[in-house]
Each structure stands twice: as structure tokens, then as C-alpha cells.
């Protein structure tokens, strides 16, 4: 066969390609990533995928165990809860609350937090120092507690839980973006660009941003895992998503009384939550490892 590549040329992959190479070499990371993608698809198509309406009650089918057990029923693959609602439909529909809302929350928090953080990162003096201390205080208070305070003021409910979680996540973004901007700002390549007379917006967007993007993606995954857990925890405490909605944390709270009678109604939603968080964490962790490997080579 004719070889058209006449000249041997060594091509070094771009940093992003290198990152992807390290990342995709990790089997667990790829599995977690594809699970997440699957979860996203299921969430988007949940109205068509769920066999029944999430709140439809089957009076003749109360507390039916999953279909693979002896008394199970093929109509209800994952069984039903104590008032006859299909668990599979509830878990699929609940994805909107347990994955969809956290995604929106993280997106909003990231946009706001990164903007504030970027500007905070390049300011100096008293204002920066004051902001720094304020952030340290905010960060030392657990996110769930802060969310509880916000909810205590606004009152329980889905919207308020979403607002609370968003507000709570913003300081984390501000903090990490501020720190990395601060670190990069004094590196030689940025100083060189500054001496070249690049305008500040160019420095921020085109010089520094590409170098901290992996860090931001990592921060986003960790924020996503926090958001998922906090929304579920608030639902569990009865302070977030309210009862009939099929949010996983709320389902777990309900199953607290049912643990003796129908353990599956506790195990299955919890399992879904666990797998989701695990996937997000594995992706974030593998990303961290990949970044570390890339910088080491």
C-alpha cells in the first residue's frame, strides 16, 4: 500500500488530548463516565421511559417486592411501595430531581462563582484580604448547615432548597477559582503576557483560563456530588422536595418507617443515589489523577 505519510514527524498531543489519553486509559473512569451519560439520557427521556406515572397508585398491588423475587410481579419490575406506586417509574422520574436539579444548580453556581472568583483573583489589597477571610469563614461551615439556614429563612420547599444549595455552592467556586487565578497570576508566562501589554480581559480569558480549565472541571464534579447529596439530604429531612414528588431522598425518608416491611423500597432508591454519586466521584477523581499524571510527565 502506498504510504502517503512521507515525512516522519513527531506530533505531540495537545494538553487536552493528553488529558483525555490518561483519562480514557482508566477503565473505571470510562465506565463511570458512560453510566453518567446513560443517566443523563434516562433523565431526558424519563416521561417516555417510565412505565407508569410516578404518583399512580395501584390499590391492588401494595408493597410488592421486586419481580425477581418469589412474590414479585412482572408488571412492577422493581416492585411497589406501601401505597402501590411503581418504584421503577418513581426512580426514573425522580432522576429529574436528583440529577437534573443538581446539574442546573452546579451550572448556575459555577457561572456566578467563576466570574466572582476570577475578578477576586486579580484584585489585591484590603478588598482581596477581606474577601479571603469571609470565604474562609463560609467554607468552614458545612454546606448542608448553610443550606439549612437559608431554608430556615425561606421555609421548606423545592425552590428554596434549590436556591439554598446554589447559594451554598457559590463560595466554593469563588474560593478555588480565586486561588488558582492568584497562583497563575504570578507565574512567568502570565507575567510575560502582562509585560507584553495584554489587556486584562485577554489575560483572564485567553491566557489564564485555558490553564485552569481542568481544575474547574474537577471542581464542577465535586460540586455536583455535593449538590446531589445535599438535595437528597434536604429531601430526606423533609426540608427540600416535598412528599409526593419522587425525589430519591424523600423516598428514603418515607421508607424509614417501612424498612421492616418492604426493605426494597429503601434499598433501591438509595442504590440509585449511591451509584450516581459514585460515578460522579470516580469521574472527578480520575480527572484529578489524569491531571497529576500529565503534569508529572
Amino acid at each position, binding site marked *: 500500500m502506498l504510504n502517503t505519510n512521507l515525512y516522519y514527524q513527531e506530533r505531540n498531543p495537545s494538553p487536552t488530548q493528553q488529558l483525555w489519553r490518561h483519562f480514557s486509559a482508566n477503565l473505571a473512569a470510562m465506565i463511570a463516565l458512560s453510566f453518567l451519560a446513560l443517566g443523563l439520557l434516562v433523565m431526558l427521556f424519563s416521561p417516555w421511559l417510565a412505565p407508569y406515572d410516578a404518583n399512580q397508585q395501584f390499590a391492588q398491588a401494595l408493597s410488592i417486592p421486586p419481580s425477581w423475587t418469589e412474590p414479585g410481579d412482572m408488571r412492577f419490575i422493581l416492585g411497589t411501595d406501601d401505597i402501590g406506586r411503581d418504584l421503577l417509574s418513581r426512580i426514573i422520574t425522580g432522576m429529574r430531581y436528583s440529577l437534573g436539579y443538581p446539574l442546573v444548580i452546579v451550572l448556575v453556581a459555577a457561572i456566578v462563582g467563576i466570574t466572582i472568583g476570577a475578578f477576586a483573583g486579580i484584585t489585591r489589597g484590603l478588598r482581596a484580604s477581606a474577601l479571603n*477571610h469571609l470565604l474562609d469563614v463560609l467554607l468552614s461551615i*458545612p454546606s448542608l448547615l448553610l443550606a439549612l439556614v437559608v431554608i430556615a*429563612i425561606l421555609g421548606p420547599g423545592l425552590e428554596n432548597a434549590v436556591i439554598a444549595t446554589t447559594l451554598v455552592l457559590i463560595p466554593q467556586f469563588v474560593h478555588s477559582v480565586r486561588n488558582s487565578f492568584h497562583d497563575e497570576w504570578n507565574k512567568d508566562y502570565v507575567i510575560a503576557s502582562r509585560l507584553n501589554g495584554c489587556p486584562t480581559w485577554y489575560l483572564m480569558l485567553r491566557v489564564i483560563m485555558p490553564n485552569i480549565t481542568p481544575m474547574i472541571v474537577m471542581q464542577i464534579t465535586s460540586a455536583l456530588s455535593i449538590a446531589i447529596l445535599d438535595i437528597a439530604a434536604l429531601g430526606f429531612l423533609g426540608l427540600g422536595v416535598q412528599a409526593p414528588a419522587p425525589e430519591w431522598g424523600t423516598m428514603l425518608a418515607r*421508607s*424509614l418507617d417501612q424498612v421492616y416491611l418492604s426493605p426494597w423500597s*429503601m434499598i433501591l432508591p438509595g442504590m440509585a443515589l*449511591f451509584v450516581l454519586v459514585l460515578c460522579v466521584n470516580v469521574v472527578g477523581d480520575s480527572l484529578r489523577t489524569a491531571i497529576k499524571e500529565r503534569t508529572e510527565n
Partner: protein
Amino acid sequence: MIRYTLRRFLLFLFTLWLLTIVTFSLGFLFPEFKHSDPTVGSYLAYLSAILHGDWGVSMSTGQDVTEQLWIHLGATIELSFLAMLLSLVVAIPLGILAAMNQRSMFDRWVVSAAMTGYSIPVFWLAQLLILLFAVHYDWFAITGQITPLYDIPTRTGAVLVDVMLSDSANASLAFWDAVNHMVLPVIVLAMMPLTMLIRIMRDATLDVLDKNYIKAARARGLSELKLMRRHALPNAMQPLIRQLGLQFSVLMTNALLTEVIFNRLGIGSWLVKSIYERDYPVLQSGLLVFASFILLINLLVELYHAWRYPQVRQELYAEY
């Protein structure tokens, strides 16, 4: 070090002061709860009331908040310290062993177990453990601190201490009953910091073992045991100690959930209950104490860190 301590302490006081402003203004954000107008005068009155230990009266039970506060705080301190202790005792050796046998089966097992444990939602883990150990095996009790039959008077809130202080005839039985009540909450609570600390300890040990001074000490012919004890371990502990404050905050979040699930006395469950009942004096003071407690722990950890690792102080000075 004195300068550093003073500066850190002043910052802590400043933070506490900020916190009182927040809790004070909280009073005006609640629709139903307006004791006075938000003026400087009323804030000063609030501040002096707090400083004099007059924290108001609960709206739902009519009890004095100050008294209740110490009991609940005692219970939370007991639970969280035991959990932290458990996670440290398990995490440090596991992390070191995993790092020393990097890429072995043991290492892989520990790392993936830590990842899994880190991702389990606390409230689900609690339910699973209840299902297994309380419902299925009936080994451990799951609600409250102690069986009410023992009739132990609550003094400090920390139930083990209370049992020891009491002059009950069945003190030793009561003690084991209290321990029995405590096993599951402590395990659940320890899980999150435990898994985090394993990862931190493993990474730190790997990092330190790769350092030049370790290689140099090894080249000088220092024995492996001495090397670990004198150089590797103290240096690997540094990131762990730095992270300890943060881990404690995480643990306190989970304490909130754990206390609710296991129906235990504690500042977390007290706080959540006050939110349900819109019991604002309790909410206000519970929040203040909960947050100050976390800040205090963070302060202590930071001071210890700076005292033990002098080069940290230098970095801190250089920054300002």
C-alpha cells in the same frame, strides 16, 4: 508562634462577632418573629444577653435555651469526637500500608473501598446498617442514647460521661447499654472522614516517600523502620492535619443527619427540630453554637498545625 496565635485568635473573635450579627439579623428575616426593631441598640442588647448566658426561652417547650444548649452540645461533642477518633485510628495505618504497597492488591482494594465508602449517602448507609444489624440480627439498639429504664440523669449530655457521673446501682450495665446505642451512629458518622482520610494519608505518604530527603536518608543507610518513624510519618501527617478541620466540618454535617436518623440528643437534631417547629430562639442559638464549635475546632487544628510544622508559619507570614 505567639504572633501567629494572636493573629489567628483575633480572626476567630472577629468571625464570631460576624456570626452574632448574622444570627441577630436572622431574627428579622423570619416573618413571625419580631422582637424589636433592627437598631444598633437592640443588637448591643442581644450581644450582651448572649455574653451573659441569657439565650432566651424555647418557643415550643418553654425551657431555658442556655441549659438545653450545653446538654445538646455535650452529646454532639461526644458522638463526633468518638467518630473522629475511630476514623483516625483506622485511616492512618490503612493509608500508610496502602502507600507502602502501592499498586498491590491490598492497595487497590483499599483505594476502591475508600472511593465507595466516600460515595455512600450517609442517611442511606445508616438505614442499611439499621436493616442489617438492628432489624436482621438485632445486635444494636437504634433509637436514643440509652434505654430509659436505667434512669440516668442528664448532666453533661455526653451519655457515657453521665453514666459515669451517676450513682445508679446498674452503672456498668447502663454504660454498656449506652455503648450499644452508640455503635451504629459512630460507625455511620466515621465513614465519610474515614474514607477521605485514607485517601489523604495514602497520597501524602506516596508523596513523601518520593521526596529527596527520604531517598537521601535511605542512601545514608538509615533503617527502614527509623526512616518511616523519623522522617516519612511526621511529614506525611502534615497534609492530614491540615485537612483535619475540614474533615471535622464534613463530620458535623453528617452528625446532623445521623442524630436525626438515630433519634439522638444533639445539637444537630435540635437544630433540625427547631426548623420544623419554627422555634427561633433555639434556631438562633443552636446555629451560633454549632458554627462556633466548628470554627473553634478549625482554629485549634490550625494552631496545632502551625506549631508542629514551623515552615507553615513562614509561608503564612510571607503571604501578608
